[in-house]
């Protein structure tokens, strides 16, 4: 078990993390390139940047947008706060970074970490309940929409268990293995699922706006490509 855990923490983690970083960079580069190309081709390049910026901020910090499906939205905000803060500011995690790369930053107290962990788990359950309990979102959900909150909850549950139970070393290592591999799976899934929103979300409002700016020749070019220049309407 010990060796498995070392493998999960070492090569497997490195692979998953690098995959995530490269995948996210690819997402971002492709999206920005898409926006730039679209603007370059657009007949009208005037974009209401101020309005776009405003609506982007509105969704990055969605406090004014909680009124639509309020419980679900609150669960989502809580989920994200716990999800982002806990792993980054947990002392044992920081020590890992220190050991590995020699970098460190302030940590949060253990008690706070425990509370954040528990509410993140609760929020994940809330998200799932909100998704499956709502007729429309249940109907349109794909497998990943249902599985992701479950998968994301795994490291939180196992992390909490590992810290709070008296385990014999083998069992502890097994729980930690699940914990680390759970996180690795999440990292690896990020570029291939809707989790890509981590880098794409700040671009979506701009994408929607630029999307309405067509190339001046687009209509004609499509007509020619489909050989319909001389076809009457």
């Amino acid at each position, binding site marked *: 078990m010990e060796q498995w855990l070392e493998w999960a923490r070492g090569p497997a983690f490195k692979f998953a993390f690098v995959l995530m970083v490269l995948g996210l960079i690819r997402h971002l580069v492709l999206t920005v390139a898409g926006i730039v190309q679209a603007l370059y081709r657009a*007949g009208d390049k005037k974009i209401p940047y101020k309005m776009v910026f405003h609506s982007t901020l509105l969704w990055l910090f*969605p406090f004014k947008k909680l009124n639509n499906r309020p419980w679900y939205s609150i669960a989502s905000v809580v989920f994200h706060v716990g999800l982002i803060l806990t792993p980054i500011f947990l002392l044992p995690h920081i020590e890992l970074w220190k050991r590995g790369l020699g970098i460190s930053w302030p940590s949060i107290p253990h008690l706070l970490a425990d509370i954040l962990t528990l509410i993140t788990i609760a929020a994940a359950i809330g998200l799932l309940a909100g998704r499956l309990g709502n007729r*429309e979102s249940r109907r349109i959900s794909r497998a990943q929409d249902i599985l992701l909150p479950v998968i994301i909850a795994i490291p939180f549950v196992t992390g909490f268990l590992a810290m709070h139970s008296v385990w014999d070393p083998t069992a502890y290592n097994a729980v930690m293995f699940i914990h680390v591999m759970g996180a690795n799976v999440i990292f690896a899934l990020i570029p291939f699922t809707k989790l890509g929103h981590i880098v794409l979300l700040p671009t*979506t409002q701009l994408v929607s706006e630029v*999307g309405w700016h*067509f190339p*001046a020749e687009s*209509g004609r070019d*499509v007509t020619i490509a489909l050989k319909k220049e001389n076809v009457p309407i």
Partner: protein
Amino acid sequence: MRKYPYYVEPYEETERPRKFLEAFAAILKHSNYGFVLDTYTRTSTKCARCAGICQVFDQSGDPRDVPCYRSELLFRVYRRYFTLGGMVRSRLHNGFMLTDDYIDEMAEAVYRCTACRRCKFACPMGVDHGLMTHLARWILAEIGVVPKALVVATREQLQGKTGNTSAIPVVALKDTCEFLEEELIENYNLPAKFPMDVEGAEHVFFPAVSDYLLEPDTLMGNAAVMHLTGGSWTIGTGYYDGINYGLFYSDALLCRIVSKEAAELKRLKAKKILIGECGHASRSAKAFIPTFCGGKNAPPVINIMEYSHKALLDGRLKVKAGAISERVTYHDPCNIARSKWIINQPREILEAICKDFVDMVPSGQMNICCGGGGGTVSIDEIRAFRTGIGGRKKAEQLKATGAKYIVAPCANCKKQLREVCEDNGLHDMEVVGLHDLVLKALDLEAYGITPVDKTGKEGEE
């Protein structure tokens, strides 16, 4: 092949999936939709926040009216046939395939959506279902699936003798305008003109051409305001139609139609395009003349309500405060309100002339669509759907205001709202244009005009 709720002209029905994919590919190559689809297919989270926002789903409760469900129809095709991951996956196992049935489902779904874009404000991922409906309709139109009502009008506009959607010849246009001029004299003592083909005028006027048949009061109001404020304007007999159904089903046609407006402006050596009271006519010119006719150098586009509002503010337009005593409400046409372009201007005009103006809730940028947007109002065979489902929520909203006049500055909204009122038992409400009321509220004495003595005659016809 399945029959759609709307009529479609006969077309070559073989190999539709192949043709659909060819058209999709050509559009992706030559237009800007690819990166939008990339982003949407990666981010959309299926949270159903958009469902409750859509006035169609709200009333139908039908799963296929959930906006994200409908757009997913297009996403799925895009993923499968135009992304690497999708192509690889389809090799590995027999996944999704585009079929005739699938095309039929999409064809029906995208004409239930009015492309009003209200749901965009509900989506955390910024997915614009109006844009997706817009794109899906274009692809479908390229394989021949498009409501006949829209095609017939566009055909007359681009290929017909009259060159406009209502098939009004120039002689009839002139007759109508002369008649309206006489009416203005007779009823208001106003020597306002509808100037024809005046070279070098500041504005060339493009109302929805159907106004010449259906909205005499709106046009008289337009002419009266232009006359009293000393506005320089003209109607070009070369082209005089603001309607643009290209916006509803084909960017190629959208381009050709706005180009006709720009060309008429050039022919008359005029400066600005002045659009009448019509939402989609305004948006198609304002947003797409820069796109298709010269970018930064494109001629400016204004709406007649912007003109009148400015004239009211700088004192050139004089109206009698509180001249309209009945309760009035204002319906925001999606095409001018969603972008926050025209929301307050008409309200300020109405507040200046009405004793009792009430707003609907919600209104402005988040207004609820009349239910006839995206060209669906022209499809008469789906009236029961438009007024019973699409426009149901609007009917409730209208009823709650208790207004006598519904001001709807849009040819499409007017037709739809009249039918909504009729089919939902709102028989006491009257749908009018903004300038219909402005005309009634003009302070003619302030311009030195003696109003026609109407005692003995009814004020309303």
